[in-house]
């Protein structure tokens, strides 16, 4: 007997359709629209970063899912586009090292309240450290602890001194601890108790940041509102609402800006800039501690184990031409640190374009027209901080060929490349790995050149082993005076530059496009940015 659709069947089908469609409701109930202006930013992540105070999505995740809702103990000065962005007090109004025990740090906390009205104090701080470091704590979560692991790796102990003072103890002398704490955010214990677990907290978060949570629509938007009781009156947001929209496709972000759906586009493709400028949009960019590099393989099997080949590679490429290729939206690297950095130092070797010197160095190392250097480089098609890796690497490949270095690419997706970064050069068999590096927080940047962090212990992909570097870094970690620390870190940077410990190409300037309606944005020399001064005008 043939199947015959019945009225009931049709109604049931429609009912299921309605249920399915209704399921696409936002997690939190939609708020009434604020009367004032809303700032809408298109971000390049594929979804809103995790909101449990340890954001996913790398530096961009921390920029939008961290510094908006939460605060660290030690923050960054994001108020100036001209001067280097340094550390400033965050939830700690001051900190010092115990003169009798330099592994012990004292943090005086400031008066502040979480968005839910509960107080920020030593108990809240210790509760957060327990959540990161104490596996027996009821609110310990392995995912959060893992994501924060790079920031908490040097912390051996913590405790409350009084209601507004805590101490931290480090495993070794570590003057770089404040840098490591600058992306360790603090969540509200009261909100966690209210919602019961971190999964629920992630969809109803509460921190002390300049913006408070309103609603989250997965894959679509995060809606925040200005936190009027923010502890720093200078950073109470000028717009009542901030909406973050994940738009992973760069062209879509630009189209959304041009059609008026968003007001600010983060991570802008360089080739869209001329037409945006012509259409009246504001382009803002600035240097920041970013280095687009090839991490080199220093093991015996790789030509890069020879410093002459490393220097030749660095002399083979015309960085100014690459900057021009990028539309001028980058800075040519001359050393590991970007120009203007307090850690630039006075390196003896300068990254410059000198193909004849490169050929001479290669000849000295035993290479020549009949015996070119053969390299295999792992690159990605895209990824955080990678700029336009395919095109940039092709340009580099052509420059290398001219001096007698033949480059073959092994193209991987970014996730695979990060796994390879951890596995180390011996396992991948490549001569270099193209992963951009931050120079902002030493622990996530230059510290990875330490010999003890060779895989599997850490991120020293190429098994770099230079006693001079290890000594310089140990000396820097033992230097607690800020000015002396800058000098010591300059020495660290000089060592890796003089040793040509990477192929350092350019420093990104991260151009952003703003609607002409926006006023007040200052792009700091930092991976993180402050969106609170922005006003949306008519």
């Amino acid at each position, binding site marked *: 007997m043939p199947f015959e659709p019945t009225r009931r069947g049709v109604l049931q089908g429609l009912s299921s359709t309605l249920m399915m469609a*209704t399921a*696409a409701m936002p997690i939190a109930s939609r708020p009434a629209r604020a009367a004032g202006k809303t700032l809408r930013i298109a971000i390049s992540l594929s979804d809103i970063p995790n909101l449990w105070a340890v954001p996913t999505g*790398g530096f961009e995740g921390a920029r939008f899912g961290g510094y908006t809702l939460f605060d660290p103990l030690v923050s960054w000065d994001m108020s100036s586009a001209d001067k280097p962005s340094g550390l400033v007090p965050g939830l700690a109004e001051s900190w010092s090292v115990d003169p009798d025990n330099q592994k012990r740090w004292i943090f005086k906390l400031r008066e502040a309240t979480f968005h839910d009205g509960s107080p920020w104090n030593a108990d809240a701080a210790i509760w957060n450290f327990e959540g990161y470091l104490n596996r027996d704590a009821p609110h310990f979560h392995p995912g959060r602890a893992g*994501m924060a692991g*790079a920031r908490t790796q040097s912390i051996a102990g913590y405790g409350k001194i009084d209601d507004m003072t805590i101490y931290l103890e480090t495993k070794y002398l570590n003057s770089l601890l404040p840098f490591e704490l600058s992306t360790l955010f603090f969540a509200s214990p009261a909100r966690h108790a209210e919602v019961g677990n971190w999964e629920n907290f*992630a969809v109803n978060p509460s921190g002390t940041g300049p913006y408070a949570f309103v609603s989250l629509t*997965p*894959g679509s938007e995060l809606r925040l509102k200005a936190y009027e009781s923010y502890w720093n009156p200078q950073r109470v947001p000028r717009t009542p609402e901030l909406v973050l929209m994940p738009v992973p496709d760069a062209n879509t972000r630009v189209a959304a800006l041009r059609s008026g759906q968003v007001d600010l586009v983060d991570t802008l493709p360089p080739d869209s800039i001329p037409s945006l400028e012509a259409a009246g949009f504001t382009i803002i960019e600035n240097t920041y501690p970013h280095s687009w590099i090839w991490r080199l393989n220093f093991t015996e099997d790789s030509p890069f184990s020879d410093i002459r080949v490393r220097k030749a590679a660095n002399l083979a490429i015309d960085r100014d031409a690459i900057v021009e290729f990028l539309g001028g939206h980058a800075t040519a690297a001359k050393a590991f640190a970007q120009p203007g950095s307090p850690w630039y130092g006075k390196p003896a070797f300068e990254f410059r374009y000198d193909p004849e010197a490169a050929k001479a160095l290669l000849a000295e190392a035993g290479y020549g027209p009949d015996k070119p250097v053969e390299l295999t480089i792992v690159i990605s098609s895209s990824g955080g901080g990678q700029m336009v890796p395919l095109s940039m690497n092709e340009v580099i490949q052509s420059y290398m060929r001219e001096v007698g270095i033949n480059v073959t690419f092994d193209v991987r997706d970014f996730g695979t490349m990060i796994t390879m970064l951890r596995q180390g050069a011996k396992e991948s068999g490549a001569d270099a790995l193209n992963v951009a590096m931050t120079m902002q927080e030493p622990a996530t940047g230059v510290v990875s050149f330490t010999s003890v962090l060779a895989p599997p212990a850490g991120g020293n992909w190429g098994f770099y082993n230079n006693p001079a570097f290890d000594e310089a870094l140990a000396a820097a970690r033992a230097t607690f005076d800020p000015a002396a620390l800058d000098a010591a870190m300059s020495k660290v940077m000089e060592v890796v530059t003089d040793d040509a410990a990477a192929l350092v190409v350019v420093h990104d300037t991260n151009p952003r496009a703003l609607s002409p309606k926006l006023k007040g944005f200052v792009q700091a020399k930092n991976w993180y940015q402050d969106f609170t001064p922005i006003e949306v005008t008519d």
Partner: protein
Amino acid sequence: MIAYILRRVLYIVPISLAVSLVCFMLVHIAPGDPIDAMVQPDTPKEVIDRVRAEYGLDQPLPVQFGLWLLKVVQGDFGTSLIKGRPVLPDLISASGATFVLACTGGLLGFVTGCVFGGIAGVYRDSWIDRVLLAVAVAGVSVPHYWLGMVLVIIFSVNLNMLPAMGAGPGGSAVSIFDWEHIRYLILPSITLAVIPAGIVTRTVRGLVSDIMSQDYITTLRGKGLRRHGIVGHVVRNAAPTTLAVIGLQLANLMGGSILVETVFAWPGTGMMLNTAIFQRDIPVLQATTLVLALFFVVLNLLVDLVQTSIDPRISRR
């Protein structure tokens, strides 16, 4: 018939299991590690090892799969490794968004395909046929993302008539069908409709022209049946095959078009799956694949049942 339906419903279990198993194996064969995607690159190895153990990712693969399956049958799809949110609400939300887009794009594509195909079949080898066939071939050939971007440039950037991205104003639900929300559907639906429209046009054209050359059509004409009467016979005979093609296309659309959803920042299953693949977010990948497999199986079953209802020559026992 009821026995047939029950049997087909029971098939869903082994099919879903097999799809989940294959997906699970592929995820683990592919290079890349979920914990590496989750933590900072400079995280110490002991921390990574501890996290891996806490999530049970250090267990043998059969144990990991068994534990996942045990939770799924209890309705627990786990928590995203990357987002820290339970997978199920996000998956339901994404499925809803894709469902709305697929139905709209599908309807547009299928109606266009049937009309174009029917006309081309009836007027086979005429200039009308050639024009419609050229349109169909262009529809199948044009890259989704290119067409999407061109439509955005014309209708969003230049004419400022329709939104360039998103599924609704202010991130609101896609289930509201007022003009403010329908505006968001138009460009992605048209983009999504182009390929199924081309495929259905070519299928229907072939079927109609074949049926039109059958002896019984000549007989019907000889008996004096008018054109609209003949069309009724043609439609009834072409419907089963067309439905089968439409069913497969609809299932494809339900899977979510990664490219269309990415170009229009449409928060559906395609985008969710794409993100999960790059982040090696195993719980999201497993759950999404399972749901998409169920979409395919259920839609195929529905197509079979509808085919049976309109063509008595097909029996389902």
